[in-house]
């Protein structure tokens, strides 16, 4: 959104292609940003507002680029738009949801909540329209939603659409996905109910999430009294992600804040190798260190096991204190790293480094630009900054000089 808006406000035409039915990427699904602990919806809404005011941006959701040909200054892209089964006439009034008989596991909430087959991703969703998950919809045999919709907005026979556009530059801003923590065998993710990853933690803390913002044990819904954060879960590890994901230390400090704010009696343990809070983020870390009930322990977690009561027992070395520690926790949050979503852009001329990031030095001056987490593991402010830069690089590809 940033790259698109910066170029459009300058005066260029932009087509914004988004795979999901809504804009906002990963951040719109988060509860708060470090270090201000402010809601991501605030900044996202400003960008929505900028988009509303700017007809130079054509928004294509449910869409992916199928192919790109051409060269700097003269690309042709073919864009495939998945059928949403709900058209522009939708007013998001929600009558359809009331009558839809089937439920689906909601990917927006990482499967921790259900929606109807016809759903609105979020109250802040842009575009503010429903969509149908055809993998569970009963189709024309049911058609309850079609009957109830007063606006002729539902079209169960909608088909995939192909659009061709020309462009002078291509910006890849395809972001990341959480590293699959179940691949880290000793940490019990997927086996132990009370072991979750950090994106799930964001949903638990969101008022629009599965627990309306309350952080609760995943097995019995009880408030936790001991919570652990396990750093570098998959990052800085040759067998998983060799690079440092840059943000997970700060994310875990943020998560410690979530827990401590809700449960004044709780204890939070953060197991880390190095606590990376660069620049101005240092004061955010410092504030957490001043809380006597947030315990920072330098040491790698050896394993996590479940005890009879469903608690997750963390065993870790304690480098400073010496020896090993064992902490029985009600909830363990794995600070999983960010893995680039590179596979989805593979056919689009982009070149990747071995970790899947699209790097500038690999692209040369080809009019192919990458920004945000597609180009490296960055936080929001750095992503915003290099997306603004990406907008200029894109503008240069179309400049006559």
């Amino acid at each position: 959104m940033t790259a698109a808006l910066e170029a459009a406000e300058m005066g260029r035409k932009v087509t914004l292609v988004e795979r999901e039915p809504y804009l906002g990427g990963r951040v719109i699904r988060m509860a708060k940003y470090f270090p201000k602990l402010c809601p991501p919806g605030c900044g996202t809404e400003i960008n929505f507002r900028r988009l509303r005011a700017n007809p130079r941006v054509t928004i294509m959701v449910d869409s992916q680029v199928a192919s790109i040909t051409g060269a700097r200054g003269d690309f042709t892209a073919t864009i495939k738009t998945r059928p949403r089964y709900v058209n522009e006439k939708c007013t998001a009034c929600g009558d359809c949801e009331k009558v839809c008989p089937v439920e689906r596991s909601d990917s927006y909430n990482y499967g921790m909540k259900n929606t109807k087959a016809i759903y609105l991703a979020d109250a802040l969703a842009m575009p503010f329209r429903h969509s149908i998950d055809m993998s569970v919809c009963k189709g024309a045999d049911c058609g309850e939603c079609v009957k109830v919709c007063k606006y002729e907005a539902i079209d169960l026979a909608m088909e995939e659409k192909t659009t061709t556009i020309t462009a002078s530059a291509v910006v890849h801003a395809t972001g990341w996905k959480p590293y699959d923590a179940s691949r880290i065998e000793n940490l019990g993710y997927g086996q132990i109910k009370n072991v979750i990853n950090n994106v799930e933690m964001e949903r638990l803390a969101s008022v629009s999430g599965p627990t309306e913002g309350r952080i609760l044990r995943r097995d019995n819904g009880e408030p936790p009294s001991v919570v652990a954060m396990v750093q570098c879960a998959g990052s800085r590890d040759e067998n998983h992600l060799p690079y440092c994901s840059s943000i997970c230390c700060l994310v875990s400090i943020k998560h410690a804040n979530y827990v401590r704010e809700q449960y004044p009696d709780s204890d939070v343990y953060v197991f880390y190798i190095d606590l990376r809070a660069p620049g101005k983020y240092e004061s955010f870390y410092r504030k957490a260190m001043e809380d006597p009930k947030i315990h920072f322990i330098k040491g790698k977690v050896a394993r996590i096991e479940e005890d009879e009561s469903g608690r997750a027992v963390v065993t870790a070395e304690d480098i400073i204190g010496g020896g090993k520690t064992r902490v029985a926790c009600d909830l363990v949050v794995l600070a999983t790293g960010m893995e680039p979503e590179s596979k989805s852009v593979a056919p689009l001329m982009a070149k990747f480094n071995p970790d899947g990031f699209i790097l500038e030095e690999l692209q040369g001056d080809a009019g192919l630009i990458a920004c945000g987490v597609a180009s490296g593991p960055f936080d929001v402010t750095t992503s915003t900054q290099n997306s603004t830069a990406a907008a200029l690089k894109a503008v240069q590809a179309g400049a006559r000089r």
Partner: protein
Amino acid sequence: MADITKTGAYICSGCGIGDCVNVEALATVATKEGKVAFAKTHPMLCGAEGVALIKGDIASGAVTAVSIAACSPRVCYDIFDFGESAVLDRIDIREKVAWSQEPGHLETQALAEDYIRMGMVKIKAMELPVPFIPEEPSKTIMVVGGGIAGMTAALNAAKAGYKVELVEKEPALGGFANSLGMRLPDKAPYDAPMENDIGQLVEDVIGDDYINVHLGATINKVSGGPGIFDVSLSNGTDKAFRAGAIVLATGFNPYDVKKLTKLGADLPGVVGSVEFESMLKEGKAPPKRIVFILCAGSRDDEHLPYCSSVCCASSLKQAWLARQANPEASVTVIYRDIRTTGNMEFFYKQVQQDPGIFLTKGETPQVAREGDELSVTAENTLLGGKVKFMADMVVLATGMVPSTLDPSVKVDKPEDQMQDFDRDQVGKASILKLDYRQGPEVPDLKLGFPDSHFICFPYETRRTGIYAAGTVRHPMDASVAKNDAIGAAMKAIQCVEMVPRGEAVHPRARDLSHPEFAMERCTQCKRCTVECPFGAINEDEKTNPIPVKSRCRRCATCMGACPVQIINFKNYSIPMVGAMIKAIDMPDEDEERPRVLAFICENDAMPALEMAGINRLRINPVVRFVPLRCMGSLNLQWIADALSSGWDGIMLLGCKHGDDYQCHNVKGSELATIRASKVQETLDRLMLESERILVDAVQISDWQRLPKMIDGFVEQISEMEPNPYKGF
């Protein structure tokens, strides 16, 4: 003013509106009370037929102003876009009525009717804005600072076709990078330092005929504003030019190592990392035993409370280079955390492979001289407990101080005459010398870096058209600084393109409205010039305000500040909101139907309220919401109007303020809070309780809490006597 006889009201009954309220009655209110030409109802205004209906009326000349009572303006914005062909206003009776009120209830109908009344007087007071375009705007970009960031910004602006004036205070380009031997890797596989290629960048800049370089130059003055910055500088001769926007890339100064006496900086053999870097550059062989102490003066309240971000990586580089220069050398690095984020991790791993480099965590290091050796002790190390290392040389890895700071600067004014922004100048370097009433430099945050919305909109300083880049903005390494500079160049280009179109820049991007001052009634009180968060208003010698419009972000803080209400926008004004406040049908004192007025920030609190509606939460029906551009635009006249027209309670719902402020206009909600605290006098005069006014910070994610908070306030108001001024 919109011509009310040429105004059409269009009322939608779709999305449950028709099931919730009597829309025909709303239409009657619009025509009978609002006196508009006509009111039409439609079951789906946003459909093709509804839109055609409106467009037809505009095309036939039947209307020149369109008031649509339907959904929130946050949706269907593209459908209800009639460009400049008509004045447009949207009245939200979907999220704020149909989706959040009890259908068919008396109070629900009353609420919707009041929103129509308010909407009718509002559109009557609105006009299409006429863009303000400064005379002879320039599209040239001035870049201040010729280091990596500045040069990169200049080159990239030039590449996009913009002329650049590059101002460097030293006699040569290059900045701090000139003093580096090798540089940190910024390309895969990131496993070894790279050749310092600053020379190439300098050559590229000098060779670019779009870039005009001023070396050894000092800025004397920058006047005007975006599009029309008039710059005068001297470097031997005096020069003057006009620029449209400014990139501030003046970099950092290394923290003064001499201040680190607690780390032995005064002992022979103890050097700062800058000195060590030049040793390496000059090819001097490093001694045999070297100890690096990281975070020397950073992450330390006595010195720099923040982390300087690059000292970990640059010390690893120096350790590595020292070992190259002297393979006999053994190097110890004492760190608190090794912060090599992202791909720098690969370099860290490479350094860890070197058996001659020992890396250990260690706290509270102490340095002492023992004969002709140095000793360094540290606690809590990886070797367990306290450890002592002997050394021939100790390198203190000093941090970065933004170049905007200069501790020696004092402000030449008696304390009692100092304003906030005078105090802000204490300890600040003199760089831009802005001819701004609020002071000559860019305002900063408590750590000395330029103030900005540093998460979402990092480039926005509090001076429109001036964008900071590189280490002056935040501690960062050179590769990040390069990208940062390209982004800042983009913002500058945007600014020089938008200003000549009369458009506001971020965050009200593309807004064409701007404040107009009815100077004949000005009392020279200086409120507007002091309160504008962006320093957009200058003053003449008689303290008359002189708005420099291209500096304006259109937040209307000045409008809120003015005690005699002379500042207004064509489509947003004190009379407009005043009329809305007075427009409602105020129930009589004995009806026991209180009325509460809520001024609500349209950026965050308003979407939160709408999300409450979208989630079908009940919102108390006695409250009428008036959206404000920013809480900073709240004028106390409105509070007086509300109290004297019988409102029982008033809420101000804006953004959080303080160090972690969320107000898009930095100071808006803070100023509104200060202003509200001053209405006590009005309340006393009217003999009303101060509890009738509530100020609360509402975040966009607060939609669940908001209705409950409102209920609580209404309950409190209901327990009081009704406002005795009803019916006056």
